[in-house]
């Protein structure tokens, strides 16, 4: 019936037997799958549990003890962002600096987590949610208030700047461990210790 590409051709009865066998096997597998439970997740009635490190939408955080904004307006995230979606203006103040304005164009964001990685104060984090679909693109131009509101609304992922950098650094074992422990204690119970 067709060139076998150089393979030995089987006789007619052998081919027919193989055909019948193949048909039976293939139909058997579809029949077996008929009785398996479907893998469908009934989103949005049922949510799939997000893994700890899920890279969702971005948000700015507050310091849990003092209630102050974590962002010091250093603009490191603005420089590292590959599609340049972050724009920050620094506001100088006496003890520490703040961000005067912080805009993030979520519609162009690549969700690469580089901004989270470089942030020295763990100010910007990614959340365990991606559900921010809108009908108007301007709703995805997140300003500082919106970013803080998102931070309060959804659960943040495990990854923050310091955690990522500590994970990547070559070991200076005692010092690294001490640093991690100190941070976990300092942050208390608000951030879940998921390590």
């Amino acid at each position, binding site marked *: *019936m*067709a060139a076998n590409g150089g393979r030995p051709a089987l006789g007619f009865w052998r081919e027919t037997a193989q055909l019948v066998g193949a*048909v039976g096997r*293939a*139909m058997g*597998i*579809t*029949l077996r*799958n*008929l009785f*398996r*439970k*479907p*893998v*469908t997740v*009934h989103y949005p009635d049922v949510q799939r549990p997000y893994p700890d490190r899920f890279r969702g939408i971005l948000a700015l955080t507050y310091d849990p003890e003092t209630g102050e904004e974590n962002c010091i307006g250093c603009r490191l995230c603005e420089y590292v962002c590959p599609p340049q979606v972050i724009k920050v203006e620094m506001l100088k103040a006496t003890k520490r600096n703040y961000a005067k304005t912080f805009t993030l164009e979520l519609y162009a964001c690549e969700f690469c987590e580089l901004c989270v990685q470089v942030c020295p104060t763990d100010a910007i984090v990614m959340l365990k949610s991606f559900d921010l679909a809108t009908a108007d693109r301007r709703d995805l131009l997140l300003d500082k208030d919106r970013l803080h509101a998102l931070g309060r609304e959804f659960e943040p992922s495990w990854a923050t700047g310091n955690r990522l950098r500590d994970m990547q650094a070559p070991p200076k074992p005692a010092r690294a461990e001490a640093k991690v422990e100190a941070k976990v204690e300092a942050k208390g119970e608000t951030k879940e210790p998921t390590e």
Partner: protein
Amino acid sequence: MTLPPVARAALGAFIVLNAIILLVTYATLLERKFAARMQSRIGPYYVGRPHGWLQPIADALKLMLKEDVVPAAADRGVYNLAPVVFLVPCMLIFATIPFAPELGVADLNIGVLFFLAVSSLEIVGLFMGGWGSNNKYALLSAMRAVNQIISYDLPFIFAALVPVLLAGSLQMSAIVAAQQGLWFAFYPVIGQLAFVAYLVATLAAENRVPFDILEAESELVAGFRVEYSGMKFALIQLGEYAHMLGTSFLGALLFLGGWLGPGPAWLGPLWFLAKAVLVFLVVTWVRWSFVRIRVDQILAISWKLLLPATLVLLLATGFVVATRGAGGG
């Protein structure tokens, strides 16, 4: 009730036509759910929770409300007429199928012949659709379709003739009556092989995978139907599934004993429906399990394998009937 015969026939036709349309729409839902379960997913679910009961109605409404787009360079007459020419034979075949010993629109004494002849007329509508669309893909598909359906109609007819020979009549109710003892699908060798040949020829005549080269969504993007949308597409879809169900009904009638089954006589039509649905599901099961084969291979299977096989089968049946007749008197 003593209505004049014309009124009775018209009433019967009206009832059957509506019943078939309803059955066909829900056959699409059945196929979608069945296929979905075989693929580890759930089929239609949300429209008419929890099992999508209203999905076919929703689809029908959507298609009715769609804009009627006709390609600018299409041959308007042929293009507009094609779905109708496609649909009418597919509906007409149900006229000859009796659903119970006395329940049918027209239980002709050449019932099987009429069925087979009229069901082949859909090719005309198909080719009109491909031609009138003024689209190279549609034309390619229509040409393949003519090739394939004509090639497979012959084995289809010969496979369907085996029960006719075994029963000795072209009348459908007589064929069912002849299966009182043993259904023809289980008749040693010739019945069983004829049933398999019938199923294979049905797959091909219906353009179902593995013989669906004429649609070939991944190559020709819907084949001859590519330029149709809205209600015309609905008519074509209706015609396809009606033809599919029609050949399933014929298969159930010729091979699986029609309305014969345990229980009281009024259960007969329900058994018939169940058997037809079973044939439909088997064809669907095959459809969702295999990849398709090329058009030259399809034609090779038909002319080199299926046609000689069914011819031999027919000869063997004739021989069996002749010796049975001579022996039994």
